[in-house]
């Protein structure tokens, strides 16, 4: 295989060929190639049919109780998923208040989607809405304790809601922090530079689990008596600091790609450091690193699952809780639950990575032009 790789990429450029010629060229061009094809086909034969059989053909699609899934040879138990779908999305959020979560989701989509489409006007307004207005609205809507909105303690939040809250808070908080840290790391002032380097390298050097342990076990010891933020908030702080270090490195990459002449020209025109950075350098640098920011977000999105270790029920934690429900003890329960959770995470992450690839290609062409 190694031999072939040096001659270039897969030769699927031949779209106009007849299927037979295409197969001859790409699958059976030589004896070695034919053997590879056969071995690959065998590997697929070993893996794909059992997976399809379990998830689709032998799967139980209808029913309302565990009895439906107890037949011998029954595959994935979809009734388990349907019966618990509210828990997977909202956790233990009070059912009569669920509209607040749905409204928050809808508002989120309304501010995030325009941000993702390149070339739309009012970028700055959109950014302000996303980074400042939306988080405040979301906090009020979700936590409540306002007229007409009864309070819902965070211990009742769960499922996809918590996954999204942790991931989005992490990214929204880490973006400005990361920009500041990246600027600090390139600063002329030794004390500030050293501080930023130590801060970044510290958070990048430790696993997120220890950060979460620190936030949930150690942080209360450092706060004055009586001041006891709830577990979710403490973890959010940990996640935000952790991801800001990664974000800082992404932004630093973008800053390095901008020629020094840009900054110097801006200063020569009489702009202050912050004006030069904010209006000349950063807008260009951040554009360059959109794919990097999306990739950081994908990593963060996957890492949110770790909060279940400190007792917060994200989507995966909620899945574990529902699997422990005695009403749903079935032999294929764990397989069903984890395959479904994997599917949800996969759809989110794959979608975002496709977007990141799209932006990368877009940025590439603008650079070449």
């Amino acid at each position, binding site marked *: 295989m190694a031999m072939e790789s040096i001659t270039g990429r897969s030769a699927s450029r031949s779209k106009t060929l007849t299927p037979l010629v295409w197969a001859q060229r790409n699958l059976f061009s030589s004896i070695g190639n034919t053997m590879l094809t056969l071995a690959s086909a065998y590997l697929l034969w070993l893996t794909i049919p059992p997976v399809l059989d379990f998830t689709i053909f032998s799967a139980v699609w209808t029913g309302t109780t565990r009895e439906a899934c107890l037949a011998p040879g029954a595959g994935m138990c979809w009734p388990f998923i349907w019966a618990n779908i509210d828990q997977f999305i909202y956790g233990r959020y009070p059912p009569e208040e669920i509209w607040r979560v749905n409204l928050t989701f809808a508002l989120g989509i309304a501010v995030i989607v325009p941000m993702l489409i390149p070339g739309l006007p009012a970028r700055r307004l959109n950014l302000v809405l996303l980074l400042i207005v939306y988080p405040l609205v979301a906090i009020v809507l979700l936590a409540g304790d306002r007229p007409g909105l009864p309070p819902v303690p965070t211990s009742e939040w769960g499922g996809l809601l918590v996954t999204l809250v942790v991931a989005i808070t992490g990214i929204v908080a880490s973006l400005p922090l990361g920009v500041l840290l990246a600027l600090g790391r390139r600063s002329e002032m030794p*004390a500030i530079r050293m501080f930023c380097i130590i801060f970044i390298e510290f958070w990048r050097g430790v696993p997120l689990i220890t950060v979460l342990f620190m936030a949930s076990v150690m942080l209360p*010891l450092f706060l004055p008596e009586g001041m006891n933020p709830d577990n979710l908030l403490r973890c959010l702080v940990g996640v935000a600091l952790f991801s800001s270090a990664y974000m800082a490195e992404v932004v630093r990459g973008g800053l390095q790609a901008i020629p020094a002449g840009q*900054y110097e020209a801006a200063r020569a025109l009489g702009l202050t450091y912050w004006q030069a950075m904010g209006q000349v350098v950063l807008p260009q640098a951040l554009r360059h690193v959109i794919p990097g920011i999306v990739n950081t977000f994908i990593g963060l999105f996957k890492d949110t699952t770790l909060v279940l270790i400190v007792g917060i029920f994200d989507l995966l934690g909620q899945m574990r809780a529902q699997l422990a429900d005695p009403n749903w003890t079935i032999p294929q329960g764990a397989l069903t639950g984890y395959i479904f959770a994997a599917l949800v995470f*996969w759809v989110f992450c*794959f979608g975002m990575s496709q977007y990141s690839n799209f932006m990368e290609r877009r940025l590439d062409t603008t650079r070449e032009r």
Partner: protein
Amino acid sequence: MGAERNRRRGQGGKVPFGWNNPRVRSFVYQAAVLGLVIGIVWFFATTAQENLSRLNISSGFGFLDTTAGFGIIQTLIPYTEQSSYGRAFLVGLLNTLVVAAIGIVLSVMLGFFIGVMRLSRNWLVATIAAGYVEVMRNIPLLLHLFFWYFAVLRPLPGPADSIEPLPGVFLNNRGLILPEPIFGPAANAFFIAIAVALAAGFVLIRWARKRQIETGELFPAWRAALAMVVVLPGLVWLIAGAPFTLEFAEHAGFDFEGGMRLLPEFVALVLGLTLYTAGFIAEIVRAGIQSVSKGQREAAAALGLKESTTLRLVVIPQALRLIIPPLTSQILNLTKNSSLAVAIAYPDLVAVFAGTVLNQTGQAIEVIALTMAVYLTLSLITSLLMNWYNARIALKER
């Protein structure tokens, strides 16, 4: 930014002392940040001290000598419930290191294999590799671990109905049981033979390279070295007898006796870490190899180099330069991610120390600080080693 330094140097004497003097401003900013940091640290330190004395938690690392009083399911060094917390720390650390080391070796091998597969001209092979990468990378690692542990390994049949994928290898809900090599009296001679062969091979290759540079004469050093590594220990085996015998596990009562047992927690962790990280490494390898421009290969072909020689002398050395830095960070990620062990109760450093020991002693600050210090040190050592290696293979511009 250099321009600012020049400007400052040029004007330093003329700008009057005051807010318009960049030096003064810079000094004030730095003093402010430093003061803020010291203030925050001071605040946290004093509140922590108050809280500790209020809650009657002792501080300091004295607890490390106290008897631990809990068992650990996998210990690489002698450990009993009477051992100290310090000993438990060491056990956890070794468990982390062993899982990280095995995970690194396996994921680098699998990652390179899949990365090269993705570049194959065979459409089916390339597609399978691409599918692997997209599936594995986009599922959280913790979910990988849960899947392998709770959905695959735990529901396996008990020891009586073990699955036997290979003769002497048993898989059941208590783990993976392998034949254990028992080293006999000839083992020392065998290992010495391997060491001698490796050293001789190394010297031979260096000599051959030097001679080729000086005289242009070729010597099949790699093949000769490989032959030595096979033949020399083989001779020792023939003369002195087998260096080890395999002890096969046998059914005994409700379980197995003898053999080497890998805990299901360990197997799940290694599987999850390897499959997940290999997806990332495959992408790094692919990008590295693709970055070597076509002209390089064409030039090598024009010089009459064989394809395999081109690969070895032209493509791989250049690709490695791009592969090594991101590979380092993946290796570091794997090491840090091995801390997810705590979720499936594999007794790694975090599970043993930041889990059980912390719960028993309540000394959160010391325990978390020590745990973080271990990971920071591991990160630092890995990056130093990799930086050294990277500097060695970096482009030498003359």
